[in-house]
Every structure is written in C-alpha cells, then in structure tokens.
C-alpha cells in the first residue's frame, strides 16, 4: 500500500531510504549540510547542525534502550514464505534471500525481551534495511507474538518502528497483517498492559495505519518522517507543493497526532519514566 514512490525500480529495500553513507563526510538527509562523519557518530548519529536523527542499526538501538546485555531475542527463526509466487522485475524469493544475506536477519522485525533501568519490557525493533522495514506475514506474526508475551507476563510492550508500510509481495496477506496486529494490540489494551510506540524515520503506510498509531503513548524522534500516504503520492494527487516540514515529527506534534518528540540521548530515560508510571 502506501509505499512511497521511488526513484529506483527495485522493491522494498531501495529508494527514499535515509542512508548513512560510507566515507569521511556525509550529507544530512534533512538540512543537506555536509558533515564530518565522526562527529555524527560521536553524537549518537544525530546531525550536529539540525538535530536530524539518522537511522541506527537494530543492535545500536537495543544498546541505546536496554540495560547492557539484558536483551534476549525471540522467534529469530521466523522467515517469510512466498505464498503468491510473486515476481515483478525480480522474484520475491530472491529479494528475500538477498535481504537475508545482506542483513544477517530473517526479516524486518527483531523482537525479544530485556530490561530498562531494571524494569522488564518486551521490545521490538524494525530494520528498515530489510525490504524497507515492510510488513508481511513474518512482521505481523512477530508483533502478535510479542504482544501475546507482553499480555501473558504482564510486561509493557515497546516497539521502535520504521517501515515503508505493508509488503506488496505478499499482497492481501500483508494488508491483513494490519487487522491482526491491531487486534492483538486491542487485546493488550483490554488487559491494561501498556504499549509504547516509538516512531523513527521513516514510518509510513499500513504500519502507521495499524499498530504504530495505537500506542498508549506515541513517541517520535526529531525530524522523523511519519505519515499514511507517501509525500510523492500526495503531491501527484493534489498537484500542489507540500508545505515545509510536512509529515515531520514536529508537524505531527503540532497537529496533535503524537504525544512527544524525544531526542535520542534522552530516549531511554524518558521511556523509563513512562514505564514506571504504569
């Protein structure tokens, strides 16, 4: 569904992906300034000029949020099938293999449990590098399994999200993941188990329009692009230029759609106080 339109014809893992380029210098995805790579690394991968938060790896995210060495991964073996025998310019099967080899991960979501300042949480972290963080049967299943564990053990659920939306290569099955993940979050809600969604750059389409927007608390990283329809789809539909900073986290905050923007350096501490409240 609302994948944003891309420059390159390949599938999920291309196009408008905010890149963390190789080399000594890199260009900020937001302010376009050329910045010294080392300086960004030292700064938790945050642009020193404009506070744009570059994507970070799943491993870095886990280190950032959880107490050292407390993460235990679940359901790591779950992998996608190709029920539609989908083929565009390339077979889905081959795209999956490529993504698996390149990332060393089975699919776009890693889930497990760990501790935040001693408090147990169920944690899920998306990997945009795996077919654009897109949601097919595996991502849907892992969200549900994580929610089920959170429910059974009465532990808060935290999801760190970045995704282009539903995975086209699994067709209607991907669309239905929206319904089933929303249903699982509904069960958590009925049992009064807190669920905190952390939206990072970028989060779009069927993922935003399901569990991402259903957090009891919805946090976002500064300058993250978050929306339902991709900016280019909107531009083509309305045939007007989009306003400055459209669909950035600050724009969503201003329109009352998210609770809070939290800089990366304060994310763990903020999350910890929120969890302690429940």
């Amino acid at each position, binding site marked *: 569904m609302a994948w944003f339109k891309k420059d390159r014809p390949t599938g999920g893992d291309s196009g408008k992906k905010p890149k963390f380029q190789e080399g000594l210098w890199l260009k900020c995805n937001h302010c376009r300034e050329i910045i010294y790579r080392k300086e960004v690394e030292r700064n938790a991968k945050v642009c020193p000029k404009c506070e744009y938060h570059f994507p970070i790896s799943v491993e870095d995210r886990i280190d950032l949020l959880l107490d050292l060495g407390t993460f235990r991964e679940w359901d790591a073996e779950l992998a996608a*099938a190709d029920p*539609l025998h989908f083929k565009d310019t390339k077979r889905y099967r081959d795209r999956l293999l490529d993504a698996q080899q390149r990332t060393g991960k089975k699919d776009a979501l890693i889930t497990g449990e760990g501790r935040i300042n001693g408090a147990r949480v169920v944690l899920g972290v998306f990997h945009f590098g795996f077919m654009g963080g897109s949601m097919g049967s595996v991502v849907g299943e892992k969200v549900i399994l994580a929610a089920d564990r959170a429910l059974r053990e009465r532990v808060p659920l935290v999801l760190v999200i970045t995704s282009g939306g*539903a995975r*086209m290569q699994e*067709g*209607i099955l991907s*669309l239905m993941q*929206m319904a089933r993940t929303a249903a699982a979050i509904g069960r958590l809600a009925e049992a009064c188990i807190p669920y905190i969604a952390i939206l990072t750059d970028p989060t779009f389409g069927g993922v935003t329009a399901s569990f991402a927007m259903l957090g009891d608390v919805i946090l976002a990283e500064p300058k993250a692009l978050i929306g339902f329809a991709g900016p280019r789809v*909107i531009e083509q539909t309305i045939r007007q230029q989009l306003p400055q900073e459209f669909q950035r986290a600050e724009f969503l905050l201003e329109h*009352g759609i998210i609770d809070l923007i939290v800089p990366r350096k304060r994310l763990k501490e903020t999350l910890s106080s929120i969890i302690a409240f429940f």
Partner: protein
Amino acid sequence: MREYLDFEKPLAELEEKLDKLSAAATSRTGAQEDLTKLRARLHQLQTEIYAGLTPWQRTQVARHLQRPSTLDYIGRICDNFVELHGDRAFADDHAIVGGLARMNGRPIVVIGHQKGKTLKERMHRNFGMPNPEGYRKALRLMRLADKFRKPVVTFIDTPGAYPGIGAEERGQAEAIARNLMEMATLKTPIVSVVIGEGGSGGALAIGVADRLLMMQNSVYSVISPEGCAAILWNDAGKAPEAAEALKMTARDLQDLGILDEIIPEPMGGAHRDPMFACDAVKKSIEIHLTALQELPLETLLQQRYDKYRRIGVLAT
C-alpha cells in the same frame, strides 16, 4: 446507455445489431429466427469473454462507472434507511455513508464507501476516497451498533483512503488504525461485502468482520495495480502484470483463506442486472447474520479473533 469496457467491444457491436433488429418491424419472415440466433451468439460470446477475464479486466469491471454503489444496495435490500451524518468532530465525509436500517425486519447499522456515478456525483463523493472524518463517522456508527447490540453490515468500494494534506493533518493513519482495533473487539456481529474495489487500508478500515464476502467481479488488494506497477516495475503501464501478481480477485482471496463467500454476479457484471446482484447480496448477508446472531457474544469475539490470528503464511 450501456458503457462498454475495452474487452467488451465485440459485445457492443452485437448488442447494437440486436437492438436495431428488435426495433425494426418484426413481421418480416425469419426476423424472429434471426433474433433468436443473434441472442444465442451474444450469450455465447458473453460467456466466453467473462469466463476468461484477466485480473486486470476484472479490475475494470469492479471499477465500472455503472456498477451498483453502496446506496444502490441499501436502497434495494434495506427498508426504513435513516442516513446519519458526520463524525461529531470535524465534518460529514461524503465518501462514506451510513445509518440505521432494516433488512427483512432485522435492525442493522449499515455503512459503506460511496463513489457516485456521474462526474458531479463522483466529485461530491471524492471518488469514494474517505478522509479521517469518514472513518470516524463509520466508527461512531459502529459504536452505536455495539451499544444497542445491532449487527453491522459494511459495503466496501474505494480506491483507497484519500492521500491529501488535510487527511495527514487530521490523522488518516490513526483513524484507520483505530477502526481496525475497535472492529476487532466490537461486541456485535459484522458482515462486510466487497461490492467493487477494495483499495488497501482505506477499504480494510471498515472491513474487519466476522464474515468477509466478495462479489464475483470485485477486487481487494494491498495496493492498486497502477501503484504497485509504478513502484516495482517503475512503469504504471505494467498494471495488468501487477494485477496478476497481486492475486486480488475473489477467487484468489478464497484460495488464500481470507474470504468466506463469493457472491455470484449476473452475466457481464453487477451493473448488467443490479436487481439480481442486490438480491444475491441480500440473501448472503441474511444467512450470515442469522448464523452470527445465534452465537454467544464470547464465542463470536473469540471466533473473530481466531479468524484473523490464522491469516498469513510463514516458511516452514
């Protein structure tokens, strides 16, 4: 005036001939015989064309401008329809209609996307593409159904949720997500019927149901074939290929275990005989609602949850 799709052009010629012949004096010897022959040929041609529809052709039928709309179905299968407007917060979205009605005496809350037929109507209905207030109107009506324990019937027919600036500002994603979650736990039976085009999240937002039914020529997909082709093939002209790959016809969804029933359409599509289509839809809804209303609430909700819990295919 009949509107023909590209692949129906051979039918157009034949039907024109038939019309002329039946309008002409029929006293001529052999005229009746010619007519009968022509009708038989037409029927044969129709059967051939419609038996072999490609997914892309079926998409054209599903989007046919003369196809019966939600309000057509409501008008034919419901009594005492009282339309209720607005989301009580921002606006009344004309792309979604809904209200209170009776079907065979049974009180129901009925909701659906509304596309419109003439250009003026379609613009008024935003081509069936709802804004957040449309989904929030639908949710308000569903909560009403929940409160008074009336079953919900929804009709799905949209290219998708509207991709606009205002829609994003008012939380399109949140509106859809909220509906998905609340429909999953709504304490009353829900039957959804895809009558035309099931366009991704914008369709699903009123389509989480105990029973999902599709008209024979309707389609339901995660993304439009054009959108999919533009992204994956980098060429919107590859829409026919994308339609094929996406597995978006009623038969495909049945094979994937998502669908509960395919509702038959008259030869040539629902618009060729709307009464036939409406009556078939009514009959199916009636059967499903009767069965669902007999279930204890807990069973109903558990079955709904389990139904969605099972959807998806993983590598073994």
